[in-house]
């Protein structure tokens, strides 16, 4: 299975991550909840729900980390009975991105951490430069979100490569 992306520059790093780390699900999203790439999901509604929850968890954990430690928590890990969830932030020239991934006993936390570091480095290198900054949630956020989901599930074409706003990637 191939990773599906809304922006072409995240495809190769994300595909390599899921191949190497052997995860079951992976989502690469903007902290606002807008999806950039996914692996393992078959329904747009599941991606939408996972993005919303992942963004909320990431934001909450960031604030909790600031309260407790003075800095946002960098990585979050939750071990379930059969599956485990790992959430971490990857800074890029287009702003921070959030990886949410779920894996089972085929992988391990150590492997996911190792390959997440490679993904983070690859995204930093692959990210096109940002030319404009804007609000995290601008006026057309909902239509951007829907367009991202449509691209991910093959209902729309990927946008042409070009500069984008740093805090709200166009999709």
């Amino acid at each position: 299975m191939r990773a599906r992306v809304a922006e072409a520059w995240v495809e190769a790093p994300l595909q390599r991550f899921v191949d190497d780390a052997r995860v079951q699900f992976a989502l690469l999203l903007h902290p606002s909840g807008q999806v950039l790439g996914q692996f393992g999901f078959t329904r747009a509604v599941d991606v939408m729900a996972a993005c919303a929850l992942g963004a909320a968890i990431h934001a909450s954990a960031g604030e909790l980390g600031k309260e407790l430690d003075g800095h946002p928590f960098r990585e979050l890990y939750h071990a379930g009975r059969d599956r485990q969830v790992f959430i971490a932030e990857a800074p890029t020239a287009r702003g921070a991105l959030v990886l949410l991934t779920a894996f089972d006993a085929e992988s391990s936390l150590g492997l996911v951490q190792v390959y997440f570091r490679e993904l983070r480095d690859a995204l930093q290198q692959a990210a096109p430069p940002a030319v404009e900054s804007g609000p995290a949630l601008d006026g057309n956020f909902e239509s951007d979100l829907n367009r991202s989901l449509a691209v991910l599930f093959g209902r729309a074409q990927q946008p042409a490569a070009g500069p984008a706003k740093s805090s709200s990637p166009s999709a």
Partner: protein
Amino acid sequence: MSTPYTDVLSAVTRQRGVLGCLLVSEADGIIVEANVQVGIEAGVAGALVASLYRRARLGTDAAGLATVGFLQLEAEQGHVCAVGRDGLVLATLAEPKAHIGLIRSAMLRALEVL
């Protein structure tokens, strides 16, 4: 800082040709304790060796060969050795000229006291 595992790892790293010794959680691939030479990425090596050991253990189990006694991987520039017990993997990285027999017995002795 000394931990309950420091002496166990020291007994292995004392062997000639040993580049490092790591105690790793088999399920998580997370380092419990490591004593490695500068330049070796303990976290990366630990996660990968734990995964390798786990798969070897599952493989021998599926083949009806019971548990893995001693895992040795020979590479161009050295050896990776691993033994495991109760969810922990003791991994050793060694130079090509290292005496694997001595390392093996040191690791098996260390495994008994884990």
